[in-house]
C-alpha cells in the first residue's frame, strides 16, 4: 500500500511537468496576449512590459524559468493582468472561498444524492422510486446560470432572507446560495449513478442469497450492498470533488464570491499567463491526488482490486 502511494506520488511529478509543457504550448499558440487591448500599446511601452515580465525571452527559457521559480522558491510569479497581486496572493485569497462552498456542496450532494439513490433502488419502480428520481432530476434540470439568478430574485429581492452575493470572509448567509446552486447538478448525478449501481448490486447473487436467508432489507443494504454500490459513485466523485472545491465560474460570477473558479475562464480569456498556469497546476495536482484517493478507496471497497 505504502509503496503504491509513493509510486503514484513519484509519477505525479512527470505528469505535472507534462501538464505544464502542454499548457505553455497551448497558451503561446493561442492568439492574443496579456497586454493586448482595444488600444494597442506603443512599441516602447510594450517592450518595457514584456521585459519586465520576461515575455521577451524565448518560450523555452520562459518555461524553464517558470518551473525553476516554482521548484526553488515556490513562486508562481505576478499576475499579468491584476498587477497588484501575485498568483499566490490570488489563490491564497480565492481557494479558501471555493474550498468552503465546494466542500459544503460536496457534503450536500453526497448525502442527499446517495440517500435518494438508495431509496429509489430499494423501492425500484414504485412511486417512491419515481419521486426520488424525479426530485433528483428536478433539482438538476435548471442549468446553474438559470438557477443562480432565480435564487437571488427569490431569496434576496422578494424574501430578503439572504444577501445576493459577496463573501465577507465566509459568513454563513453568504455561503448558502452558492452551495445550493453548486450542489444540485452533482446531487442529481450522484443519485442516479447510485440508484443504478445499487440496483445492480441488489440483483447480484450474494445479495439474493442474503435475502433468501431472510435478513432484513435495512441490514442488507447497510452491511452488504452499500459498499460495493458506491464504486461507480466514487469514480464519478474523484474528478467531481476536484471540480467542486476549485469552484465554478458560474458561481463566482453570479454570486461575486471572489473564489478561484472564475480564474479558469477569466484568466484564459485575458491571457493572464501566470494565473492560468497557477490554477492549472492546482487542478492538476488535486486531480492526481484525489484520483489516488479514489484508487485506494477502490481497494477498500473491493479487496480483490489489486493496487
Amino acid at each position: 500500500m505504502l509503496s503504491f502511494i509513493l509510486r503514484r506520488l513519484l509519477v505525479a511529478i512527470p505528469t505535472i511537468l507534462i501538464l505544464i509543457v502542454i499548457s505553455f504550448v497551448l497558451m503561446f499558440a493561442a492568439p492574443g496576449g496579456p497586454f493586448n487591448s482595444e488600444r494597442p500599446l506603443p512599441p516602447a511601452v510594450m517592450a518595457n512590459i514584456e521585459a519586465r515580465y520576461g515575455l521577451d525571452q524565448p518560450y523555452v527559457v520562459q518555461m524553464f524559468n517558470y518551473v525553476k521559480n516554482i521548484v526553488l522558491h515556490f513562486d508562481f510569479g505576478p499576475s499579468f493582468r491584476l498587477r497588484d497581486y501575485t498568483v499566490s496572493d490570488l489563490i491564497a485569497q480565492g481557494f479558501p472561498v471555493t474550498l468552503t462552498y465546494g466542500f459544503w456542496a460536496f457534503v450536500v450532494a453526497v448525502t442527499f444524492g446517495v440517500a435518494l439513490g438508495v431509496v429509489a433502488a430499494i423501492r425500484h419502480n414504485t412511486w417512491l422510486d419515481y419521486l426520488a428520481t424525479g426530485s433528483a432530476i428536478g433539482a438538476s434540470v435548471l442549468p446553474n446560470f438559470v438557477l443562480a439568478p432565480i435564487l437571488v430574485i427569490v431569496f434576496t429581492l422578494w424574501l430578503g432572507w439572504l444577501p445576493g452575493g459577496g463573501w465577507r470572509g465566509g459568513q454563513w448567509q453568504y455561503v448558502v446560495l452558492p452551495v445550493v446552486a453548486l450542489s444540485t447538478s452533482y446531487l442529481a448525478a450522484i443519485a442516479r449513478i447510485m440508484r443504478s449501481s445499487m440496483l445492480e448490486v441488489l440483483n447480484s447473487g450474494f445479495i439474493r442469497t442474503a435475502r433468501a436467508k431472510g435478513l432484513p432489507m435495512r441490514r442488507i443494504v447497510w452491511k452488504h450492498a452499500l459498499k460495493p454500490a458506491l464504486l461507480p459513485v466514487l469514480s464519478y466523485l474523484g474528478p467531481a470533488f476536484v471540480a467542486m472545491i476549485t469552484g465554478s465560474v458560474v458561481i463566482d460570477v453570479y454570486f461575486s464570491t471572489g473564489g478561484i473558479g472564475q480564474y479558469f475562464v477569466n484568466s484564459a480569456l485575458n491571457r493572464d499567463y501566470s494565473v492560468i498556469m497557477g490554477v492549472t497546476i492546482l487542478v492538476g495536482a488535486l486531480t492526481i491526488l484525489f484520483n489516488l484517493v479514489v484508487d485506494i478507496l477502490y481497494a477498500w471497497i473491493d479487496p480483490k482490486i489489486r493496487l
Partner: protein
Amino acid sequence: MALTTDPLDPLPAAADLPQGRSLWADARRRFFRNRAATVSLVVLGLIAIFAFGGELVAQYERDTIDFTLIGINATKGVPSFATGHYFGTDQEGRDLFARTVQGTRLSLLIGIVGSLVAVVVGTLYGAIAGYVGGRVDSIMMRIVDILLSIPFMFVLILLLVMFGRSLLMLFIGIGLVSWLSMARIARGQTLSIKNKEFVEAAIATGVRPLTIILRHIVPNLAGVVVVYATLLIPEMIIYESFISFLGLGVQEPNTSLGSLISRGAAQIGNGVPWQLGFPLFFFVAMLFAFYFVGDGLRDALDPKDR
C-alpha cells in the same frame, strides 16, 4: 449503444433465459413494460418531430427581424396565435418559435453526439485501461488526468484559429471532452469486474483479451454507462453555449437551446418570461425524457434483473 451489437451473453444468468429468445428482444420487452420509459420515449419522439418538422408550422424565418417589434418586446412581442409568433419574439424581434425549433434540433444532435462519443470512446478506453492494468493503466489514466486539467479553452481557440468555425469543429470540441470522466468510471468498474469468476473463467479458457473486454467487461458496464451518458446530455448542451461563446460553435442567425436559455436568463425580470420559458421547457422535457429512457434501458439491459 455498444451493447446492442452483442447479443451473446456469456453470463451465468444467461442460462435462465428461455431458449430461442435473444437478450435484445428480452430487453426490448422489459423496456416497454416500464411505463415512465415508454412515455419518455414518446416525448422524445414528439420533441424530434418538433425539432425536425417545426419549420413547416413556423410563420417566420428564424433570422427575419420585425423592425416594428424591436425594443417593444415586452408589450408587442408576446406569444400569440394572432401574430403568428407562437412563442413570442426574442430581443432582436425575431420569431422565437422558429428559433426554438432550430435550437432544439441542434442541441438534440449535440447531446446525442456528445454522449455517443463518451459511450464509445470513454467506455472502451476505461475498460482497456482497467482490464490491462499495471503500467498501461497508469499511463492511460495519467493522460486522462492531464486532459482533465489542461486549460481546455485554448484547445478550442486553436481549433477555431486553425480550422475556422463549422458545425464539425463544434462536434469535435464536444467530443474531445465528453469521454474523460466516462473513462474514469468505466475503468473503476472494470477493476472490480475483472476479478469476477466469469472473467477468470474466460481467461482460463484462453479467450483473447480484446474479446474478453468486448464480450464480458463492456456488457457489464452497460448499466452505469447508460445512466452516465444521459447525465452527459444536458452537460454537453450547456457546454455548447460556452464553445459558441468562444466563437467555435454555432453562429448567428443559427442558435441552440443553450444560447437561447442563457439569453433568456439574462432577461429574467425584464417582463419577457417567454424568452426563457419556451427554450427551457424543451430543454427540461428533453432531459426528463432522456433520464427515464436511460433508466429504462439500464433496467432492461441489466442481465441479472428479472
